[in-house]
């Protein structure tokens, strides 16, 4: 669906090297998160795909079409939700979406426009101009605009920035539905739980380079070698009773909770040691690391 080969970008203004030799292939039907700190180069990459930024080097193939040779074909395949919210002072929401359909060569798209407005909870704003919309509504309008031509590849640059929790969740539902219907989706976000909840593949970009690109589970696996386990007892315990766990950094908290750190592949061994000792715990939980921790780890290293 998308192939990026050796893309680099040095901005003329400021001579900033925003991307360094990026290589990336996205298959049809993937749902990918692009993570990275402010200024990492996410928007630059998206803007190159969108034709807003000239790349310095490299090649981009979108849906089988070369961005340099067949730019117009690539436009039909992509829908892009930009990071910056524009303001159109003149046209109404409905007007704008109809024109947008027209630009893509689609006549009489009202049924689908209605569907989009409904899905993005904008039905009662169809006669408003964007000036009359709130920030979150404008963002949802941008999503509607990117979708009128039913793109196969949807790229969203921080679609949920400034959107309230409830609407964010309805947006997740909507994106999941689009994905289930076959749309390939790439999304950037600073809400890590969003990537964790939606995406199957995580790409982390830092200072213009891809520093991680893995299926979500695998990424979490790699960085979750060590896991925290908590045992709870219904009687008071003493740290001295757990000498035999010395290698696992045991800690006792609140007299009844025992915390242990263990390598993932030693987990069953630990369980055996504990049951062999005949310890009577009443509760256990294993803390899986959050993507957020992994991410922070990655960009620190």
């Amino acid at each position, binding site marked *: 669906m998308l192939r990026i080969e050796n893309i680099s970008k040095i*901005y*003329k*203004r400021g001579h900033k090297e925003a991307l360094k030799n990026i290589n990336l292939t996205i298959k049809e039907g993937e749902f990918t998160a692009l993570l990275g700190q402010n200024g990492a180069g996410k928007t630059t990459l998206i*803007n190159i795909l*969108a*034709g*807003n*930024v*000239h790349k310095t080097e490299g090649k981009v193939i979108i849906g089988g079409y070369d961005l340099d*040779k*067949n*730019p*117009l*074909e690539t*436009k*039909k395949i*992509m829908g*892009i939700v*930009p990071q*910056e*919210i*524009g*303001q*159109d*002072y*003149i*046209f109404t929401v409905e007007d704008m979406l109809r*024109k947008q359909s*027209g*630009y*893509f*060569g*689609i*006549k009489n798209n009202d049924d689908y426009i209605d569907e989009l407005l409904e899905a993005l909870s904008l039905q009662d704003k169809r006669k408003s101009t964007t000036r009359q919309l709130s920030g979150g509504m404008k963002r949802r309008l941008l999503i509607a605009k990117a979708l009128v031509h039913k793109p196969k590849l949807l790229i969203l640059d921080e679609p949920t920035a400034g959107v309230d929790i409830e609407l964010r969740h309805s947006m997740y539902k909507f994106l999941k539905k689009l994905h289930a219907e076959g749309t390939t989706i790439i999304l950037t976000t600073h809400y890590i739980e969003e990537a964790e909840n939606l995406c199957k593949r995580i790409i982390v970009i830092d200072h213009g380079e891809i520093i991680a690109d893995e299926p979500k589970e695998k990424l979490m696996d790699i960085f979750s070698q060590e896991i925290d386990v908590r045992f709870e007892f219904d009687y008071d315990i003493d740290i001295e009773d757990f000498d035999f766990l010395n290698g696992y950094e045991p800690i006792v908290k609140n007299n009844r909770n025992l915390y242990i750190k263990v390598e993932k592949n030693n987990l069953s061994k630990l369980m055996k040691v504990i049951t062999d000792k005949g310890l009577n715990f009443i509760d256990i939980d294993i803390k899986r690391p959050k993507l957020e921790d992994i991410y922070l780890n990655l960009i620190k290293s």
Partner: protein
Amino acid sequence: MKIFYNRLGFTVLLYREIHRFFKVFIQTIFAPLLSNILYLAVFGGVLKTREVGIEGVNYLHFLVPGLTTMGALMAAFQNPSFSLISQKFQGTIQDINSYPISDVEKSLAYILGGTFRGLLVGSLTYIATVPFVGFGIKNIPLFIFSIILTSFIFASIGLICGLTLDNFEKMNFILAIVITPLSYLGGVFFEVSKLPGVLSHVGNINPIYPLVNITRYSYLGIAEGNILLHGILAFVFLSASFITSIILFRKGIGIKVR
């Protein structure tokens, strides 16, 4: 790369450019019309007693095609330049990069939108003069053609300015420092040959000069200078402005980041 790719997309973009100025018709149609009528009243009143214009021609009749041309070219210039600069201002300019519409189609949509506004304001200006001077165009098809030609050239120049300038101050500067003086020196209100010294030669590099004279020729049957030469110059200005605007669009000047 195809020159014509998406006819519906082009038509909708052209429609957008026209729809946009109709939504603010007070500023875009009514205001220039009013100012042109004021010109007619004031200049016509003041200058008709002086020795300006073509000998043997009523000064008001001399002035009408000048004002019509000026009305058309100002409106045509402002439409694409204002449209693009306001899209830059609104942060929506890059939308245009996402449409599957060819560069030639995009340029033409902006230019023809401006041409339409120029034709509209030019025609209305002419119609507004009819109560003062009566109806009387020697060659109606040439008159209309000349307004369209003028509008097309200045819409192209407007597109060039809209792409290369990044704010309204710069655009107003161009209007006040370049276009308006060129109209005054281009034979709108009086003959260029009556201007003192070097100014009388400015006509040859001023795109407004041949255009005013072609319109005036179609209206009166006579004009200053050689009408054939005016025609050739107009064609040169037409090609140069149109080709430049397409090249700038293709290069993404003002709409893509390098």
